[in-house]
Structures are given as C-alpha cells and as structure tokens.
C-alpha cells in the first residue's frame, strides 16, 4: 500500500466518523407535558428554589382532592423551558400565577389551568426580585434584595413603570414580603436591616419606618388587622446588622408602633410566619418544628404544634385557607427532590408527596 492509499483510507474513516457522530441524541427525560387539569379550589403550587447558580428551579402542582403531585409542570407545559435560577415566591392574581425567580431576574405570569407561560416581567431595573404584591389590576410592587428600590410594574403590559426609593444603602438594602392594609402597603426589610416600612400606594412613597428588631424575616396580618412581624435576630453572631434573640412583634399598622413583643431564645431560628384562615392563629417554624399560637396569647407557645421528627427539618410551610391543613416542606439534603407532608388542622399527618429541589414557597389556587 502506498502512502497515498493510506491517506485516502484514513480520510474515508474520518468522514464516516463525522457522519455518525452527527447523529447524537438530543432528548431529555422529564420533558413530558403534565397529565393533569387543575381546578380552582383544590390546587396548591409549590415553587422549588433549586440551587443558586444551577438554574434548576421548578414548579410542582399538588391536587388537594386527588392527593396527587405533579413535578416540573412549568417545563413540561412550555416545551422544556426552564423556570430559572432560585425561584423565590408566588402570588395568585388576575387569573395568573405570578412566580418571582430571583437569580433569573424575571417574574413569570403562568396560567394555573395549563401551566403555560402567559407573559413575563423583565426589566433593566430588576436587580434581585423577591416578592410581587398587587396593589390593583394595573399596579404591582416588586420587592428586591440588595437594591434600594421597590419596582412598580404594570401586570397588563408586563412592564416596569417606575420605582420607590427606600433610602437604604445599595448592597445591604432589602425589602421582602408585602401586605395590603387599606391604601397602604406594609413590608419587612430583612437582610442586614431592622425595620418595617409603610408605603402609601396612592403616591408610591414610603411614609413611615419602624425599627422592630434585627432582620425582620416575615410578616402577616391577623383578624384584627394587626401586623405581626417575625425577626430572625441576625442568625449568626458576627452579623454586622447585629445578633440578638429573635422576636415576634405585634404592630399597630395605623399608629405604626409596637404593641407587644415576644422574645425567642438566643440562637433560635424562627421563620415562615403566617396567619390561619380566620386570622386568629399564627403559625411559624422554629428549630425544626411547627408552632401555633392564638393572636391573643400572652406568651410564645411552650410546646410545638407539629414535631415532624425522624430527621425531618422543615424548610417552608403553608396553611390551607379552606380547611387549615398544614403543609410542611422538607428540603432533605438540598440536592434532591424535596418532600411535603400534609397535616390536618389538628396536626395529624394525612398525606405526603415529593416536589422539586428545595421546596420554598407555596401558593393556593
């Protein structure tokens, strides 16, 4: 064989390799459309954060009547489009499920009946979105971490139309949850902050600010329209914002003053404060357990309402607005599908199901 013959044969082999290698697989398991038709009044959406910088956030749907969960419904219904990086929170408004995806800098509007995307709010102003709150059908506030501005958006056009300057320093600024109180929006400022703020939704201006303790983590209104604020106390001793015993603070939203304060033990890690359906009870997580107390209580509860035990460490929680069932999410090792245990209103486990990675937020439908 001559050298030329050899070159020819080698070239033929290379061409064959090129052709065959072009026929590689291009499909991913888990992209099928979800096989469920949700009905209002029996649906629970679970937003799974995924892992920061991994882009593996996902949406799980749980049918409370059928007691069946469907994972990855957003990707399945949207041709494999991913929900994004670090899903933070959800709100139902105007027939849409609004999902705030923090590190993807986007707020998706999702049809809760089909899981298909209806639109999205993206903006050059969006630095680190955390929660969305609807003041009206044409105005929503989007709170942000690090950024000193609360964004104002028009849900109809999916456009950011303005912002509210909180006056906080960039980098350590933080506005989290928002609740409506008449014409005002009340919000807690969590990371490296100590205050709650009161925004006049008619003028889009902050009108009052109240210091309640280190790092107000979550808020809710009770049946008497009092604002309850749960602080995490800074969570770690060297926190530049301070480190103290966490607090549960009751605030008069009109006078914007503290009515009463309950103190946890130093080192406790309370979170996920929310009111029951009638607003007469408060629920929160602390030290791996679910706690419940009447809003009229004079002290923090002495024993937990639910102790999941068995190595379970609750990561998020919600209370059903229709029957007071309590749903407790466990992120397990944070790199596998999480799990949710459903408890009846009297604290007995009645169901459990799997979700996506790091189930961190709930929304009722």
């Amino acid at each position, binding site marked *: 064989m001559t050298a030329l013959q050899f070159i020819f044969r080698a070239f033929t*082999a290379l061409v064959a390799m*090129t052709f065959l290698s072009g026929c*590689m697989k291009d499909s991913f398991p888990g992209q099928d459309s979800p096989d469920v038709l949700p009905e209002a009044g029996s649906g629970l959406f679970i937003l799974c954060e995924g892992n920061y910088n991994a882009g593996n956030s996902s949406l799980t749907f749980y049918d409370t009547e059928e007691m069946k969960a469907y994972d990855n419904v957003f990707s399945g219904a949207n041709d494999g489009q991913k929900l994004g990086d670090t899903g933070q929170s959800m709100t139902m408004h105007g027939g849409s499920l609004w999902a705030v995806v923090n590190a993807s800098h986007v707020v998706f509007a999702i049809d809760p009946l089909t899981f298909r*995307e209806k639109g999205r709010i993206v903006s*050059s*102003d969006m630095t680190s979105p955390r929660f969305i709150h609807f003041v009206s059908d044409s105005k929503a506030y989007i709170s942000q971490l690090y950024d000193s*501005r609360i964004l104002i958006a028009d849900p109809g056009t999916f456009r950011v139309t303005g912002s509210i300057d909180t006056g906080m320093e960039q980098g350590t600024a933080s506005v989290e949850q928002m609740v409506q109180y008449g014409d005002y929006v009340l919000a807690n400022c969590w990371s490296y902050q100590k205050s709650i703020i009161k925004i006049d939704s008619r003028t889009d201006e902050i009108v009052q600010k109240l210091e309640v303790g280190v790092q107000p983590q979550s808020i809710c209104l009770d049946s008497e329209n009092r604002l309850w604020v749960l602080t995490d106390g800074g969570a770690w001793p060297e926190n530049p914002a301070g480190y103290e015993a966490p607090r549960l603070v009751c605030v008069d939203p009109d006078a914007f003053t503290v009515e009463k304060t309950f103190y946890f033990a130093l080192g406790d890690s309370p979170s996920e404060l929310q009111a029951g359906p009638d607003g007469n009870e408060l629920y929160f997580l602390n030290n791996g357990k679910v706690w419940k107390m009447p809003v009229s209580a004079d002290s923090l509860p002495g024993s937990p309402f639910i102790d999941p035990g068995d190595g379970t*460490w609750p990561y998020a929680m919600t209370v059903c607005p229709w029957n007071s069932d309590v749903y407790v999410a466990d992120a397990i090792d944070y790199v596998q599908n*999480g799990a949710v245990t459903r408890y009846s209103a009297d604290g007995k486990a009645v169901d459990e199901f799997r979700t996506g990675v790091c189930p961190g937020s709930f929304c009722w439908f």
Partner: protein
Amino acid sequence: MKFNGILSRLLPLCALLVLMAATEPLHASGSFLYAGQEALYARPDTSAGYVVPDSAESVPDSKLEPDQKPNPDQRPEPTLKLKEAKVTASRDTRGVGSAVTVFATPALRENISVSLSDLLAYNSSVFVKQSGRASLSTVSFRGTSSSHTQVLWNGMKINSPMLGMTDFSMIPSFLTDNASLLHGPASLAEASGGLGGAVSLKTGARPDGGWGLEYVQGFGSFLTADEYLKVSYGGRRFSSSTRAVVSSSRNDFRYVNKDKNENVYDSQMNIIGTYHPVERNRNGAWLDMHLLQDFRYDAGRAGSFVLSAWYLRSRREQPPLTVDYGMPADFINEQRENTFRTVLTWTAPIWEKSSASVSAGYARTALDYDYARDGGSGEMTWMNKSRSRTNTVFLKGKYAVRLGKQWHLKAGLTLNRHFVDSRDEAKLSSGNTDMSGTYPGYRASRTELSLYLAAEWHPFPRAGISLSLREELYGRAFSPVIPALSAEYLVSEKGNLRLMASVCRNYRYPTLNDWYFRPGGNPDLKPECGFCYDAGYSFSLTFFEDRVSLSGEGSWFDSYIDDWILWLPAGSAKNFYTPVNLKKVHAYGVEQSLSFGWSFADAWTLVADGNFTWSPSINCGEPMNRWDESVGKQLVYIPEYSSSVSVSLSWRSWKLLYKWCWYSDRFTMSSNDYTISGFIPDYFMSDVTLSKNFSFTWAGITVSLAVKNLFDEDYVTVLSRPMPGINFEAFVGITPKFGRR
C-alpha cells in the same frame, strides 16, 4: 438514539481499527523513527532523570575529506556526531507499588495552547469538571471530589487554603516541565489529604545549552489570542528559563438557548408563538497573564539550586446562566486574581548513598470577585464585593539514604503556615453605626506540620515493599498516624510486567473556610477520613524490531471515606450555609490505560493512547430521614464512566492529532433522578490538530490548526453553563536556532 449513541462511543476504537487496516503490514521496511513517541505514561523509577546533550551537530559535506565525499549515485546515510551526553538519574522512591502517571515535557507541549485541565481531560483517567472556557476547572481522582486532590508546585501545596481546591484552568501546560498524577495511596508520598490522589507539577528543568528562544502566536474563534514566549540560557553551571503566557478572548460565542423560550406576543399581549432564541455568551471575556522564571545553578558536589517564581494575573468575566433574563443597563460580574508563588530548592548528594533537599517557598493570592448591576439609575448595586487575601510560607526538608542493596530509607518534614483575610465589602454600611467598619468575613491563620518517614525494602531484586508513616499537626490538633503500605513484584522482565498493591489510611482536614467562614463556619468539623487500597499491573512490550510498542497500566481501587464534608443551609434560616460532616462514601472502580506506537513505511508513526475509568462513588451513609433517596446513589457531578483516546499520526514533519473524550451521564441530584435538571447528559468531545514543521537554517517554524468540538456537539458540562460549538485556533511558532542546526 441508542444505536447511534453506541456507534458514537465506539468511534475512536473503530477509527483506530480502520487506520490499522489501512496501513501496510508490520513487515514494512524502514528504519526506526520514533520521534514524538515520548513516554507519556512512564513509571517514575524508569523515567526519573533526564539526558542532557551538551550539543549535537551534523557534519556538512563541505567539511569532509575528498576520499570521504559521497558517490552521487550512492546516497549516504546521514551522519550525526553526538557529543558526550551526561545522564543524571535518581531513583524516585515515591512509589514502590504506587500508581503514578507521568507527563514529561513533550506531552505537555503537545498542544501549547491548552491548560493543564484540557491536557488531563484528554490524556488521563482523572475527571476534569469545567464550567466553561477559561472558567473554573477542577480535577478529581477515583470518584472523589476536587478538594480531595492535592496539588503541589515544586513541592509546595497550592490548593487554596480557603477552598481546598485548585483551579487547573489557571495552569497553562506551557509553564510546566513535568506533571505527575499520583493515584490514591501514591499521593501520601507527597502530602496527606489526597483522598483521591495528588498532582505534582515541576518546573526548573535544565534548558538546552546556549541561548534558546521560542515564540508561539495563536489566533482563534471568538477573538481569542494566545501568546507564548520562552527565553532560555543553558550554561555549564548556570541556566535560566523565562516563560510568559498571555491569553485573551472575547469568548462571545453564539448558541441556541434551549433553556429559554422567546415569546411572540400579539397586540393584546397574548403569546402567539415561541422559539428557542439564539444568544451570545455575554460577559465571558478573559485576560490571563503568566510570567515564570526559573534559575538553576549546579554547584557540583555542593548540589544544585533551583529558584522558581511564578506570577499570575487574571481577569475573567463570569457569563450569566442560560436562564438569566436580566438585561441591566450595565453590570459587573468578574473574578480577578493576582498570585505570586516562589520556591527555592537546594538538592545535594550527601556522602555516597544519600541525598538531601531543602525547599523554602512563599505564595500570595489576592482573589477579588465583584457582582454588581446598574438597575438604570446610573449607580451600581453591589451584591458581592468579595476580597480574599491568602499568604502561605512553606518549608520542606527531605533526606534519603540507601543502606545496601535492600534498604532505602527517607524522611521529610513539611511546614505550611497560612494566613487568610476574607471579607465581603458589599455588605459594609457606613450609615449604620452598628454595621460601620465591619464586614462579613474572617481573618485566620493555621500552621500545618507534617512529618514523613518511609522505609523501602527489596528482599530480592524483583520485589519491593514500602512502609510509610505520616504524623501531622493542623492548628493545635495532631492527626492520628497516617500509614501506607505498598508492594510490587516484577513478574517478567521481558514484558516488564509488574504487579503492585497498596493500602493506606488518609485524612483531609477542613479548610479555613470550613472552620472560620462567617457566616456558617463550623469549628467543630472533624477531618474527613479515608481508607484506600488498590492493586494493579503495568507492562511494556516492543515487537518487530522495536517498530511496534505496547504498554499499559491498570488498577482496581477501593476506598471508604467517612465524615465527608458538605455545605448545607443552616436550618430554616435559609440565608447562609454551614459545613457538616455528613456522608460516608464508598468509591471504587477500575482505571485502565493503554499506549500503542507503530513506526512504519519509512516515515510514518502512529501513536495511540487510551484511558478508561469506571468509578462508582456511592453515598453509603445513613439516610437523613425517611425521604432521603441519596443512599446507595452516585455522588453528584461525578461520572461513573469516562474514557479518552488520542491518536497521532506523523509523517516526516506533518502531524495529525485526534483527541476524543467521553463522560457518562452525571447527576446533579443526589437521588440520581432523570429529570430535566437532574442530570447532565453524557457527551463526547473531539478535537483535531494538524501541524507542520518547517526547518530553516536560521529557525524552525511550526504552523498548526486546531479544531475544537469537531462535530459541533451541543453540550454542557455544568447545569445552565453554555459551551461553544465547533471553533478554531491557528498557531505559528518560531524557534530561532542561534547558531545551532
């Protein structure tokens, strides 16, 4: 898919067979030309030392006497007159019975443009996890994590004392003269903590005599430019080598983003259509500069002194994820590194049968990470302004002595002292008195002292047994004794067939971040403890008057690692992570490598190397709770199977190099679920390089063209990190001869 997938996996093997079938039978005549067939996988005790020809010159016809002039009809055999060559060698006592892979200088220069991570991905059995072009690349052995790989540069450990890992994308192969992979127990000869293994990098090799200069300029896709310069001088006693590397790229490749849909709206803002957008890799540019200086002085009986200093300056932008919808007016997301490392080593024979060496070194790294976005106000919102400064001083002494023909003893003492200052300046507030002047972060220092004793016994020439012990001090805690026992037996001298086995216990101490990082550092962490054993073989054969060579190594390994450290969110507070001793891992499997060389048809040379690794790395700890599905499953991001093949075909001054590697599916979830984000699909990568050398009287010139991702594979190596399709880079290298021919 599966049929094609199987075909694609078999392609390198098919190609090799086809090439073999296409060539002449083995009895083809021709002299043995084996240039370029450097020993890629030499055992250390056979490769140690080097040949240093003072010079070599051919004798031109004009200088021949008349009666020596050749008959024009009778072509003479070319005559090459060699001057006396000095051969130095020292028995490397690193490894009786140890699995070691050595990359000598020619292998490291095979493709001048690659980083060490690229080289290892295509030419070894280790797993290289790359986040993208010129992005974090880590190396792990035998199913362990990247922090279980100890990396030494001229004997000094260069793993980040904060993170425990090493970014191999920051190590150009051009700046390395010798790289050794110490698999499993073999790593204990250099350092503890290599539960998977260790990588030892060395510079300071003696350059050729006289002045030498080499310059390579590369230009490639995405406005990539690479420059390599080496100036060397080799004298009788003194030598110097200066190397510089500058690499830059806009790195703005285009790709179809299948993680996103682009919506088409009607006037009522209803979505009427979607498609996957074609996007550019934004903010992915880099500029890396390296300067390496080696001085060497050989003082005869007083030994030799080698001073190596390496300065690295890097600025790398961090591209957004494929799922990022942000469109800020301006943003910063970049990492900057300034690192200086230097090591001075004195090595000398002591009396007749012993030797000693002393090294002293210093390393400083300034690592900045900035993440800020301008939300339209013209003012940057800083989310992260991380500043880390690490300083390390290093001292090491070694002594080895041979007692008769049977015993070889050695001892070593290593001291590392780390100083770390780490903080996030984005979290400083000047307006709030409580926060004023304080940052989240920490300052800490730690002393690491390691005493090493080893005895090697050769009861008869074909057999050897080695026992070593390490005792370490980390901070104020002494480690338990770290023992290693290994043995080997030469079964056949003809095929150099050796059998070897080793067993060891090993510890990896928590990093300074693990202990001190604020928030989350856990000073109560225990060291990770590993128990490893392996057994293997190696052989090397030549056939047909040495025109064909075949060599290989294989090993089976098994290790149990307790108290594996993982960072998890600190309870339900959600806003920071903390490390915990959580998992028990059973990592086991097989490594196999084969090298084949064939010289045929006068000037043709075919060299093929292949590696295959099967490395289950299984979480065998207790489940965290009844939900935990991670027990019995493969660890995240560690492939169970991987393989690589490189085939080079040379003809005279031409060379065609084809490289292929494959990683099996890797899970991103500890439960090993096949969901849309639960795994990274397997992928196989092919690169090809064609090069041609031109030899002029005044210089040698090399021209080459490299094609990367030859088959335009659509792939990712890490979730949501895009990778480029087919891309190209051309190189021109010039080596002036300065009077040498």
